[in-house]
């Protein structure tokens, strides 16, 4: 039964059927083939996921981000990031990195960031003399920071499979997000020095920067507010997500004065579509996970790893390598939902903290976003920069170095996971 499911999964995935449908069809086919489990299980498992109160945080964090991003706020955030770093060596490239960090606190989506920021910044960077392939590589890698800065959809999904608190995961995501930001800014700086990239030579304009900071403040404050409310246990993640929506509405109505009923409706429909996409993956993964648990796959895998690899550091390395390969081919939400149930018991067996595993998982799978053959942010950025995937990939070397270094640090230094 499990073999049929795995075969069907990879064949259908290769045929470009959407991952969510693949999960539903492969698990359904396995149940029909095996005949041991009633087909009613498919509907029961799918509906069970819609009855989870914590999952309601998904649409409302997406809605809050969508409300913030669909107004004038995007320009303000980019303006602030530009003023902050453009005067340094590699500063024009660093705007993409810092921009992704501050955008990430609002949108929570790497692909949305790659598209929105890339559309604004890549043409500007090219015009100023940056090589097109470097701008694409920089934008593709930087966008991955967005999914580490709260609110982060991948962390919500990981909490579903691991039972780790969303608040702990959100807090733990901040440090790797900031470390990647610092690392990628360093890549821009060193590349600019070595290759003579241009930079803005005008002096720091304090009053302008202050003005832009105040204009961007409501957006910059949103992730801080979410973290504070969760950290001190004022409300549950779902309640915080609804508070974030009202906060975004208030910012749009009273501060930016660009909120309309039409915009709210459009943002709600966009959040509905995004929720449908993620939740169908969750619903399909629930059937797959049930079948894997029924066949005792996670326990068998954990026992095999413990018996064969034995050393915890080797087991962690094996998990990282599997995640890297999975991230290259499977989209991030599905990879978390499929690998989570297998890796969580394994991590428990070697006494690895589950929050640490969550950080390592999201960090590692995020590399897949800008790695061929299925790197979504790489495709988008190369397309915006009008350069080939191959040329962009060649520029990614130093960014991979920073990302792998960060993954290894968080894999083997548990104290970094706060």
């Amino acid at each position, binding site marked *: 039964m499990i073999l049929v499911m795995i075969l069907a999964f990879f064949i*259908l995935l*290769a045929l*470009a*059927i*959407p*991952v*969510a*449908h693949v999960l*539903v*069809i492969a698990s*359904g086919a396995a149940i029909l083939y095996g005949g041991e489990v009633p*087909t*009613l299980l*498919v*509907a*029961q498992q*799918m*509906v069970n996921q*819609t*009855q989870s*109160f914590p*999952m*309601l945080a998904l*649409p*409302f964090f997406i*809605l809050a981000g969508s409300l913030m991003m669909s107004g004038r706020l995007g320009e303000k955030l980019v303006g602030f990031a530009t003023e902050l770093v453009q005067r340094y060596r590699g500063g024009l490239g660093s705007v993409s990195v810092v921009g992704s960090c501050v955008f990430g606190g609002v949108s929570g989506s*790497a*692909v*949305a960031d*790659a*598209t*929105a920021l890339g559309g604004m910044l890549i043409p500007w960077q090219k015009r100023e003399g940056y090589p097109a392939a470097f701008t694409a590589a920089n934008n593709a890698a930087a966008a991955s920071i967005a*999914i580490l800065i709260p609110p982060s*959809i991948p962390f919500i999904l990981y909490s579903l499979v691991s039972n780790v608190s969303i608040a702990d995961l959100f807090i733990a995501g901040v440090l790797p997000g900031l470390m990647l930001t610092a690392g990628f800014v360093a890549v821009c700086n060193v590349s600019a020095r070595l290759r003579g990239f241009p930079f803005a030579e005008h002096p720091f304009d304090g009053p302008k920067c202050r003005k832009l900071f105040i204009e961007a403040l409501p957006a910059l404050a949103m992730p801080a507010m979410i973290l504070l409310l969760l950290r001190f246990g004022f*409300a549950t993640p*779902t*309640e915080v997500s*609804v508070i974030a929506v009202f906060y975004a509405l208030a910012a749009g109505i009273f501060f930016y004065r660009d909120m309309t009923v039409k915009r709210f409706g459009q943002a*709600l*429909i966009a959040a*509905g*579509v*995004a929720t*449908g*996409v*993620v*939740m*169908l*993956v969750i*619903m399909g993964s629930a059937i797959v996970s049930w079948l894997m648990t029924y066949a005792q796959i996670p326990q068998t895998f954990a026992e095999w790893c413990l018996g064969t690899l034995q050393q915890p550091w080797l087991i962690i390395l094996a998990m990282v390598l599997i995640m890297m390969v999975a991230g290259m*081919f*499977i*989209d*991030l*939400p*599905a990879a978390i939902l499929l690998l989570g149930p297998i890796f969580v018991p394994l991590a428990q067996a070697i006494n690895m903290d589950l929050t640490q595993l969550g950080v390592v998982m999201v960090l590692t799978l995020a590399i897949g*976003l800008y790695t061929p053959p*299925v790197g*979504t942010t790489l495709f*988008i950025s190369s397309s915006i920069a009008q350069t080939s995937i191959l040329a962009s990939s060649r520029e990614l070397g130093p960014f991979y170095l920073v990302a792998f270094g960060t993954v290894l640090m968080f894999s083997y230094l548990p104290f970094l996971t706060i």
Partner: protein
Amino acid sequence: MTAPTSNISTARPMVIVGLDALDHWIGTVCRGVVLSTGAALLVSIAIGVVARYVITVGGVDWAEEVPKQLFAWFIMSGVVLAVQGGNHIAVDLVMHYLSPGALRILVVLTNLLVCVAYVYLFGVAMEVAELAAAERNPVLGTPGSLPFYALAAGAVLTAVGSLSIAIRVWVLGADARPQGNPEDSVE
């Protein structure tokens, strides 16, 4: 309502005109469900927050039960809209290596497969809904079958959406498939 078409216009095949009208109608219904259930979810959770933290009455029973009834409808409407818009995430590597003719056949066949699978899922969901109808929610008194009907409705509309894509691609070519908007991505 779709815009009236002219007899001398670009001669869109009748079957495509019919599918445009059907997809438009399904899209309108799903957008309506997303807007109404989304707003109701937002308001009911907000009332719960106010009751618990502002007027400290410890929560409102119905405000905790409403989301569980509505969330499935919100999700399944989003699922159908994502099918229509091509937003569901796929590993489409193979598509870059196929000729237009082969790509057309692949898209038609895979969408037909999805259509058949979701028709089957519709049947299964209806079966479970009948079993769950006997259960009643304690506060609202609504039957436990409502989320299963949402799954059934979403499944049948997903099947229709996939069939519509298969027919469009068969008639007009692979470029007629919906290809999604990166800004709406959740990755």
